[in-house]
């Protein structure tokens, strides 16, 4: 009996190991690649054991001269796109929280004529192909003069972040028993007070998860930054800058990939619980 039990578990453990390997290996491989020299990257069979070097990271941050001298002084300065990503994604989330939480609250609590229509309208924003928006946006941005500005980018990122925040807030608020608020209203509190003092603290764990999720979605975005920004382009767009033989591009691109992935990975480990809650609560309802 005991022997049987162990065999089944052993087999399950093996399967899990296999699944974990498939998930982790590509990321691990790219990380290895970022530590290799250009010659090592192209070797066949691929090398797993080698002397690591931080040279490629130095090139990425312009701390050492890029690659061969014939391609000269290609400055990369990856710090700028990273900063752009942080400012744009973070800014977008903050703005979405400010205008989205009240909206979500209203959708959850109020009853007015077009409520469900507006709700569906907000949800429907997820349906639209982003590129359909970009083309006219490009015209408008040019006319308004906000192309390649943080303001313009944060505004356009609302397409990604705002609907999610509104919808998730609505779902969470619907979970909260309405008695608390009714009591507060009876005692004469106004709606801002109710939101700030009562709802927000209760929402906090769910909102942290939702914010993380939405920040990630913003961080991932590529198409908007590609066409609507130049100097303010986020890190995903800057990755393309690394496709250049002048900088030994395979390993340096691997560095760029690692960095573009490390911010989300860190966030996940820090906010794991919240993130999963945010993801599943919203979807499950």
């Amino acid at each position, binding site marked *: 009996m005991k022997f049987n039990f162990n065999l089944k578990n052993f087999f*399950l*453990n093996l399967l*899990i*190991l296999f*699944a*974990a390997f498939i*998930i982790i290996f*590509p990321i691990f*491989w790219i990380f290895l690649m970022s530590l290799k020299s250009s010659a090592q990257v*192209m*070797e*066949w*069979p*691929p090398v797993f054991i080698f002397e690591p070097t931080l040279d490629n990271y130095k090139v990425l941050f312009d701390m050492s001269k890029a690659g061969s001298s014939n391609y000269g002084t290609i400055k990369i300065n990856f710090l700028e796109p990273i900063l752009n990503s942080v400012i744009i994604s973070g800014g977008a989330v903050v703005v979405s929280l400010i*205008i989205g939480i*009240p*909206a979500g*609250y*209203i959708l959850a609590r*109020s009853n*007015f004529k077009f409520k469900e229509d*507006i709700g569906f*309208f*907000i949800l429907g*924003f*997820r*349906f*639209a*192909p*982003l*590129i*359909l*928006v970009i*083309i*006219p946006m490009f015209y408008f941005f040019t006319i308004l003069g906000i192309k390649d500005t943080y303001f313009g980018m944060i*505004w356009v990122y*609302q397409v990604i972040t*705002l609907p999610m925040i*509104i919808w998730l807030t609505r779902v969470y608020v619907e979970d909260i028993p309405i008695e608390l608020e009714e009591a507060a*209203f009876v005692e*004469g509190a106004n*709606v801002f007070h109710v939101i700030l003092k009562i709802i927000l603290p209760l929402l906090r764990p769910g909102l942290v998860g939702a914010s993380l999720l939405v920040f990630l979605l913003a961080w*991932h975005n*590529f198409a908007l930054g590609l066409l609507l920004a130049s100097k303010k382009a986020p890190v*995903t767009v800057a*990755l393309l800058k690394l496709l250049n033989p002048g900088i030994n591009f*395979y390993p340096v691109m*691997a560095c760029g*990939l690692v960095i*573009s*992935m490390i911010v989300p990975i860190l966030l*996940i*480990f820090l906010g*794991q619980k919240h*993130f*999963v809650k945010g*993801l*599943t609560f919203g*979807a*499950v309802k």
Partner: protein
Amino acid sequence: MYQSREKSLKNYLILPSVLVLLCFLFVFFYGVYLSFTDLKLGKPTVNFAGFKNYIYLWKNPLFWKSTKLTIYFTLVSVVIQAFLGVLLAKLFSTKVILAKVFRPIILLPLVLPPMSVALMWTTMMNPERGVLNYFLSLFSIEPFMWISQYSTAMLSIIFIDVWTYTPFFTLIIYAGILGVNQEMKEAAQEAGASAWTTFWKIELPFMMPYVLIAAVFRIIESFNQFDIFIGTTGGGPAKATTVYSIYAYIQSFQNLNFGRGTAILFVNWWLVLIGALITMKLYQMARKRVS
């Protein structure tokens, strides 16, 4: 009295969000309008062109090929992800040690930017020097062409998509599994049902709503998928992976046919709408069945 005035005032809280989203709606309509013009970047005149762009698409074999590719990609990816998602959810919900240890890593592929994922796999999928073919060679398997050949490119991209987004299904289904009525499960097992029957008749129906709601999200995103395609093949080789988003991108930004590009995207939008609505209906049916 006091309450009703408060009520009507507070409804205006929704206004800023609605305004912001309204302007995107306006942009959307403007984009749709553009699809009825002959807008070509660079040409000095823009004229209303009625359905000309749509007729062009209707008559164009590449448009139909793109349609097939987009639907094929979405359906195959989502079905495989759903299937594997259920498997992984069951696997990681078992009580074995490694399940607990490795549970957090399920999130990993999800949090990576799709563009980074695309570039990462492109490197690994190099037919002559990529590490994937190295692993195949260890099992004496011939080098696979991955994204470099017409016949294998779409499958390779589906592979990448499955790797990235199966965890999404896993997470959602996993949350659902936790809620499966333990008593029902035990009762069935006591009544002599095998593990398989328990799974098929009790657990799976419970999981279906979760699978379907995750499917709605994935279907929407797969119909609109751009990053993974542009980061790997850019629509090639030989149009093997020219899905709607890529087709529209090439038409608009390389060939300067903005009118046609927006027309393609408008059709894309309808596809998304229909796909999402169908899946939502299935979801509601599954919900009913469970309760």
